[in-house]
């Protein structure tokens, strides 16, 4: 148990240290959601008081513009980089367990998610927005979202990307339509009925709706139970997909 914990901490610490050294990704992960929040918060305010618009904009921006790019795009880029610089092979030679490696990545991105949540809600608070519901319920939704994003990130990183240049393609091609359809930037109420039906099978829709309900309307577990069940199920599926793809990639990597 202690061994696992040490390994997880070592991986998480290294990822965060590298991100701090590189800075570029961290700056993007702060500037992009901050700008999107300001933009959409002010657009939806429509010249009136801003507190309500920032109440309802902050959750969607946190899930779609912040966590999506950091916790999904980040692991994809990380796995590709580990393969390219052959450090993945060095880790395979070591006694490091693959579950520790995965959990180390999740932990690193949970820290980043926490930072992004503080920044998004900090900016929203400046404009009068606030978190109305249970903070613990909000944290649960964020944790589930991070796990599922990292799981999908492992899936894409291990299956579809071999070089750094391949990273943006799948993330943009699959991700951006899901963000639009998930109500990240626009309320889903403007969607035509057939697209709304499609939105119900979009995990980002459930992440957004769950966090928006808790954060902007103060909803409890019962009111968001459908979204939570979907989110739990998707997290499990994402983790299975991610683990399976990662395992196949490791087998290839072991052959050298």
């Amino acid at each position, binding site marked *: 148990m202690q061994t696992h914990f040490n390994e997880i901490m070592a991986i998480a610490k290294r990822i965060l240290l590298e991100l701090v*050294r590189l800075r570029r990704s961290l700056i993007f992960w702060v500037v992009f959601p901050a700008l999107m929040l300001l933009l959409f918060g002010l657009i939806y305010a429509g010249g009136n008081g801003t507190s309500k618009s920032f109440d309802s904009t902050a959750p969607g921006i946190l899930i779609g513009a912040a966590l999506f790019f950091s916790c999904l795009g980040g692991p994809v880029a990380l796995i590709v980089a580990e393969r390219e*610089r052959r450090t993945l092979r060095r880790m395979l*030679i070591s006694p490091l367990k693959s579950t520790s490696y995965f959990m180390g990545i999740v932990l690193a991105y949970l820290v980043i998610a926490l930072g992004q949540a503080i920044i998004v809600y900090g900016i929203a608070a400046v404009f009068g927005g606030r978190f109305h519901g249970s903070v613990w319920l909000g944290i649960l939704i964020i944790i589930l979202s991070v796990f599922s994003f990292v799981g999908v990130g492992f899936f894409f990183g291990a299956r579809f990307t071999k070089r750094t240049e391949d990273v943006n393609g799948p993330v943009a091609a699959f991700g951006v339509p899901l963000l639009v359809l998930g109500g990240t930037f626009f309320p889903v109420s403007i969607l035509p009925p057939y697209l709304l039906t499609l939105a119900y099978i979009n995990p980002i829709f459930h992440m957004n709706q769950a966090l928006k309900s808790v954060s902007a309307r103060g909803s409890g577990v019962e009111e968001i139970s459908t979204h939570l069940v979907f989110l739990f199920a998707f997290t499990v599926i994402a983790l299975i997909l991610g683990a399976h793809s990662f395992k196949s990639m490791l087998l290839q990597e072991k*052959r*050298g």
Partner: protein
Amino acid sequence: MIEVIDLEKSFGEKHVLNRLIFTVNQGSVYGLLGSNGAGKTTTINILCNLLDGDAGNVSINGKAVSGKTKNLLGVVLQEIALYKDLTCRENLLFFGRIYNLSQVQLMAKTNELIQTFKLGEYADMPVSKLSGGWQRRVNMSVALVHSLSTLILDEPTAGLDIEARYELWDLIASLKETDVTILLTTHQLEEAEKLCTCIGILKNGSIVAEGSLDELRNLVQAKQIALVETDMETDLYQRLTSLGWKHRKYGGRLSLLLPDQFTLKEIIDKLDGIPLSSISLQEVGLEHIYLEVTSD
């Protein structure tokens, strides 16, 4: 100590290792030589527990290779596998942590390696700022971060300039003094000659020759090698046949396997006036042994 007994491995129809046998004794440096595809990388992958052999036994310090023997083994990969945005010290600390060293052990080992590999001046610089030679040093030091008795060096000097290569050879030679068991794979025969106490030549997945350099020299029926160039090769071949001297053509150069020690004048006299455009003498080296035992 590394023991490989009757190891076999196939990928589909392709037999990569065929009853491979060799032993690397404690404190010795064993050079595993072979052309690309001879089975060196597969052997290393099996020793590192990345692949399973189909048959045979592989052990490190008497323990069958498994996930548990990973702690006994340090591996210097062909490629520089480091986090280049982190400093040398941070790389050492990270890899020490994934080998589960305690904080005290980690600090002591990191400082010791920085000293051994003379990294002091560069220890807190990002690896990306270092030259290729220094990056190789860090790459090797990382493989030694957990206390170990066995080291695998997979073409450790590939792509290095001469100066950096010599420096790394000195480092490997100094490791020999510390009773570490080393398995070295290399394409550079000079490297094997200089560093190895025992050499195994691998061909089609089996060892075809093994021993110290002196023992291997006995496999070549020559006391000396003469490299000659002539426009009258047919006449030369006839003369060599009458003298009973063997000859080989390696890389377009004609090598005469001399049965005794001769001076250049004696050789020219024995060749009976056949005009030579050049002639030089060499000791029987690993290059000749390698070509002799691997030729079909």
